[in-house]
C-alpha cells in the first residue's frame, strides 16, 4: 500500500465515523473561504474601479498651471507671474528626451453653444492633438479627435463631450453636424467616449467642448496657456523628469528650479500611488475580516482533530509498537487536517467563483432597472473580481490555518505513550 493511498483511506474511514462533524467543518471552511474571496474581490473590484476612474483623466500625466515666484532669482524680484506659452510645448519635447509627450490648452467658461434652437452655456477648451492620448480624449466610433492639420489650418472643428452631444443632438448622430460656438459655425468631428472620470479640473470632460488650440487663439485672442500637461515616458522617472521640466522652463522664464510656487503641478502619478496604497489598505482590512472567519473554522478543524486523536489512541499505540516514529504520526494527522482544509477550500473556491459571477450579472441587471443616479452609485462600487493574487493569498491562508489546526492535535498524538495507549479501549 502506498503512503498516499493509505492516508487517504485513513481520512475516508475517519470521515465516515464523524461524518456530520467533518461535514459541518468542511462547510465552515468553505464559508470562510467564500467570505475571504468575496471581501477581497469586492476590494479588487473597487480598486480597479478607482484606478480606472483616475485613469479617466489620463494615465501617468502631470498637470501644470502657471504660478507666481516666491524667490528672487538672478537679480529678479519675487512675485513675478510665470505664464506658459504654446511654444513651450515644443521646447520641452525638444529638450527633454525622456518625455513621452506634452500638450496644452486655452480655457473659457460660459461660452454660448448652440444647435438649432437649443442654446447652452458651456466650458470651451482649445487643445493640442496630444490630448487624445494624454487626456484620454478618445472618440466614439465614427468620429475622430483634433489632428495636426486642424491645428495648422485653424479649422473650425469641434470635439464634444458625450453629455454635450446628448444635450444638443439628443439621439441624433452628432458627427458631421454644424454647431455654433459664440455664433461661429463649427463642424462636429467626434464625440468623446463615455468614461468614468474621478480626477478632473475645470469640470468633467463629458461637459466640455474642445476645439483646436490655434482656432481658439484666433477666435478669442488667447496667447497664454491655462493648462500645460506632460507625461514622462516611464512612470518611475517622474521625479527626474519633473526636475528637468523645472530646469528648462526655469531657464526660459528665469525662475529658481527650487521655487515651489513658480509653477503649480498636479502629479497624478503620485495620486495613483496614494490610491493604490489606500485600496491595498482596504483590501488588507477586508482580508483580515475574512481571515478571522476562516480562523473560526480552523478552530473547528483543530477540535475534530483532537477528537480523532483520542479515538485513534489505540491505533497510534499499535503503530508505535510496530516502530512508527513520532514524526510519522505527526505528519499523518497534519495531512488529515490539511485534507479537511483543502476539501473545504475547494468547495469555497467553487462557491465564491459562482457567487462573484452571479453578483456581476445581478449588478448589471439591477443597473438597467434603476434610475441613472443609483446606477452610477452602483457602478462606483465596482463589480467583484477574483484575481490570481486573491486566489493565491486565500490558498496560503487556508493552508496555514489547516496546518496549525492539525499541528497541535498531531503533536499531542505523537507524544502518546505507546504502553498506555495499547491498554486504551
Amino acid at each position, binding site marked *: *500500500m*502506498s*503512503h498516499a493511498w*493509505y492516508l487517504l*483511506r*485513513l481520512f475516508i*474511514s475517519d470521515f465516515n465515523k464523524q461524518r456530520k462533524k467533518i461535514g459541518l467543518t468542511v462547510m465552515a471552511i468553505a464559508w470562510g473561504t467564500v467570505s475571504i474571496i468575496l471581501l477581497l474581490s469586492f476590494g479588487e473590484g473597487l480598486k480597479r474601479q478607482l484606478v480606472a476612474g483616475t485613469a479617466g483623466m489620463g494615465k501617468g500625466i502631470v498637470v501644470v498651471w502657471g504660478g507666481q515666484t516666491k524667490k528672487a532669482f538672478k537679480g529678479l524680484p519675487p512675485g513675478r507671474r510665470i505664464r506658459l506659452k504654446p511654444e513651450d510645448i515644443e521646447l520641452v519635447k525638444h529638450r527633454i528626451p525622456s518625455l513621452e509627450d506634452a500638450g496644452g490648452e486655452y480655457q473659457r467658461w460660459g461660452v454660448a453653444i448652440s444647435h438649432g434652437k437649443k442654446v447652452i452655456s458651456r466650458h470651451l477648451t482649445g487643445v493640442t492633438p496630444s490630448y487624445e492620448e494624454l487626456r484620454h480624449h478618445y472618440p466614439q466610433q465614427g468620429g475622430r479627435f483634433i489632428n495636426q492639420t486642424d491645428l495648422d489650418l485653424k479649422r473650425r472643428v469641434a470635439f464634444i463631450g458625450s453629455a454635450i452631444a446628448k444635450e444638443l443632438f439628443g439621439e441624433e448622430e452628432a458627427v458631421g453636424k454644424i454647431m455654433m460656438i459664440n455664433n461661429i459655425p463649427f463642424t462636429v468631428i467626434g464625440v468623446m467616449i463615455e468614461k468614468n472620470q474621478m480626477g478632473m479640473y475645470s469640470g468633467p470632460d463629458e461637459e466640455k467642448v474642445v476645439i483646436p488650440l490655434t482656432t481658439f487663439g484666433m477666435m478669442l485672442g488667447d496667447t497664454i496657456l491655462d493648462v500645460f500637461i506632460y507625461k514622462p515616458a516611464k512612470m518611475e522617472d517622474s521625479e527626474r523628469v519633473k526636475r528637468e521640466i523645472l530646469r528648462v522652463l526655469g531657464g526660459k522664464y528665469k525662475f529658481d528650479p527650487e521655487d515651489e510656487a513658480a509653477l503649480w503641478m498636479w502629479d497624478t502619478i503620485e495620486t495613483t500611488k496614494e490610491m493604490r496604497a489606500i485600496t491595498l489598505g482596504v483590501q488588507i482590512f477586508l482580508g483580515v475580516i475574512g481571515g478571522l472567519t476562516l480562523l473560526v473554522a480552523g478552530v473547528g478543524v483543530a477540535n475534530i482533530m483532537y477528537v480523532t486523536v483520542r479515538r485513534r489512541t*489505540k*491505533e497510534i499505540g*499499535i*503503530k*508505535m*509498537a*510496530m*516502530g*512508527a*516514529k*513520532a*514524526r*510519522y504520526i505527526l505528519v499523518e494527522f497534519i495531512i488529515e487536517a490539511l485534507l479537511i482544509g483543502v476539501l473545504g477550500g475547494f468547495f469555497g473556491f467553487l462557491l465564491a467563483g459562482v457567487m462573484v459571477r452571479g453578483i456581476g450579472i445581478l449588478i448589471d441587471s439591477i443597473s438597467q432597472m434603476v434610475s441613472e443616479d443609483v446606477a452610477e452609485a452602483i457602478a462606483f462600487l465596482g463589480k467583484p473580481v477574483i484575481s490570481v493574487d486573491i486566489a493565491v493569498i486565500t490558498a496560503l491562508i487556508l493552508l496555514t490555518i489547516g496546518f496549525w489546526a492539525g499541528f497541535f492535535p498531531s503533536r499531542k498524538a505523537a507524544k502518546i*505513550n*505507546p*504502553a498506555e495507549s*495499547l491498554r486504551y479501549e
Partner: protein
Amino acid sequence: MSIISMSNLYKTYNTGKVKVEALKSIDIEIEQNQFVAIVGPSGSGKSTLMNIIGCLDTPTSGNYLLDGEKVGRFKPNRLAEIRNWKIGFVFQNFNLLPYATAYENIELPMIFNGLSYKKRKKRVMELLERVGLADRAAHKPTELSGGEMQRIAIARALANNPSILLADEPTGNLDSVAGGSIIEIFRELHRDGATIVIITHDRAIADNVPSTIKLKDGVIVDSLN
C-alpha cells in the same frame, strides 16, 4: 551472548502521592533461540515487564541490554527503531488495524522500516504462506476468524526478522482449537531458531514451554530453565 539481559531492574510508577513499585530487582537472562514463558497472577507485573522488554516503556533503574545494546536509556525515536527492527509483538486482542487488509497489516512494520514496495510484497507473500493464509491477503480483520487474525498478527510480528517475538496472552481470546494451532506455530518458529517470550497465565501452555519465569508482586519467585 544473551539476547535479553536484565540486572537489578526496577520500575516505579509515581502516581501523585503514592509510589507503586511494579517491578523490583529483576534479573533475567534470555538466550538466543530460547522459548520462555512469563507467568504470574494479574497485578504481578507481567505487563510492565513485557512493556520494558518490548521497549514500549523504560525501567526506572537497573540495566536492560537487548542484543548487547543498553536500551534502558534510549530516546523515544531510537526506541521506535529498536521496536521496529528487533521486536515482534503479538497481542491478546490481535491489535490489527481494522480498515486495512491482512496484507496491509503485515506490510506496516516494513513501511516504517523504509523497505521498497517490491521487497515488501515479496516478504508479505512469504509470511502469508508461512502462517497458511495466502488466500486471505485481501481480507479485512472483520472478515477473519480469531485464529486467523492472530496468525496475521504473528506474520506482522515477523515482518522485519526481529530478534525476539514477544507475545502477550496470545491465546487469551481464542478457543482451545485455535489457541492450540497458534501455540503450534510458535513451536515451529522456535524449532526454526526464533527467540520467543510469551506471557500467559494458562498453565497448559506454560507447562509445555521449556523455560518459565514466575512473577509475584513484582518479584521473580521462581525461574525454571
